[in-house]
């Protein structure tokens, strides 16, 4: 027992090693948060372009660009994209690694969000579109006030899933030497030659974050379901 307490002390207390975890957590949260925002923006944009093209035949060029984006991003590994972003695209710039990570993870997530949102838009009955248009609302207004709110509600579980994946995916940030939560645990492991405690601490923190996120989405889902009551 005292040996375990000794290990705990060595892992977290000595040299303020717990700070690797808190600082890492901070970076993980920053990267994940802004990547989610970027992913949502990109995803909605791409989804609206793609479904507008499918519905009306307009936006041919934009649609083609979106398709290339989806193919490339979904067809290559996240880590490779992160490395390319850091060493090739921003290779000759001195630039914040956090910024690079947000960009790489956001652009990656956007591709998956786009297809989720597109499936949501497609799930809405065409009559909703016609009702909006028949009242004189133009295409963008019908999209914003009639289609997207309903689509968003339908895709919320899938979106939550994507955000959970994204949050955990940021654990590869160590590849560009960004000291995120996972990297923090790894630094402690390397310093103390003790793997169990830091890695389980890291895993536990991710788990708590995901459970919190799930709870949050559950609340939002319940709020949005007001119109479902019969």
């Amino acid at each position, binding site marked *: 027992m005292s040996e375990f307490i000794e290990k705990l002390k060595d892992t977290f207390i000595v040299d303020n090693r717990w700070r690797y975890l808190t600082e890492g957590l901070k970076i993980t949260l920053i990267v994940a948060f802004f990547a989610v925002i970027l992913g949502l923006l990109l995803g909605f944009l791409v989804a609206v372009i793609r479904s507008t093209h499918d519905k009306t035949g307009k936006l041919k060029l934009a649609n083609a660009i979106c398709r290339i984006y989806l193919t490339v991003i979904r067809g290559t590994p996240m880590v490779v994209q992160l490395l390319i972003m850091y060493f090739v695209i921003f290779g000759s710039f001195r630039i914040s690694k956090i910024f690079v990570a947000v960009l790489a993870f956001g652009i990656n997530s956007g591709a998956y969000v786009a297809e989720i949102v597109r499936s949501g838009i497609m799930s809405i*009955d065409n*009559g*909703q579109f*016609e*009702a*909006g*248009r*028949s*009242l*004189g*609302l*133009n*295409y963008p*207004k019908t999209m914003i*006030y*009639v289609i997207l*709110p*309903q689509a968003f*509600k339908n895709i919320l579980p899938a979106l939550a899933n994507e955000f959970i994946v994204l949050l955990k995916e940021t654990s590869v940030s160590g590849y560009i030497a960004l000291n995120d939560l996972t990297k923090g645990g790894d630094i402690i492991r390397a310093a103390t030659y003790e793997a169990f405690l830091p890695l389980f601490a890291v895993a536990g923190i991710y788990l708590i974050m995901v459970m919190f996120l799930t709870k949050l989405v559950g609340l939002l889902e319940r709020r949005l379901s*007001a*119109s*479902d*009551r*019969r």
Partner: protein
Amino acid sequence: MIDVKNLSKSFGSLEVLKNISTHIDKGEKVVIIGPSGSGKSTFLRCLNLMEIPTEGEIIFEDKNITHAKDHEINLIRRRMGMVFQHFNLFPHLTIRKNITLAPVKLGIMTKAEADKRAYELLETVGLPDKADEYPNMLSGGQKQRIAIARSLAMNPDVMLFDEPTSALDPEMVGEVLELMKKLAAEGMTMVVVTHEMGFAREVASRVMFMADGNILEENNPQEFFTNPQNQRLKDFLSKVL
């Protein structure tokens, strides 16, 4: 008010409307009947350009709108209310918001004005206590009455009804027809695609029989039902009456 000249509409190789011409006057109540697949709904949907005609012209108040630009079409649609078979209420919005969405978002009314108008319309359609409920809580007949109120909120000059009672349980058909009769009595110009022969007989100023993409006969309801000329119409009436 609406002039239809040599209207044709094809979906791919399927010719749904074949060279149709007719005229709808202000205040008229035109009821269109005919077997399914005859092009009734497509004809109606061409009037407010929900379907773009393949050939021919739609002239609304002396203006050729067939090739109108998108924003012009939107302006025209404000003046042509449309009621759908499946109501198409916005399920994520309360009844009040369903009614006020278009007038407010199009900048025609302030929110307060639109709310006031919504209450008036809810009185008109006999559902004043439903303002804050969601469409899912209503019966089919109530939904359709709200859909009519939603169209009326734009103060349209003409109302297009696309089989407004076909999706309703039989006991709810009456309440919707009553409301439509009320509208007709107030002088609204109406074009109604329906299978309700009683409504056609009672309310129509003109009944139109369509089959295979053509208007085969049109006449006042008295003549239309008692003295049909076209053989297809005779067969049709003998089946439905």
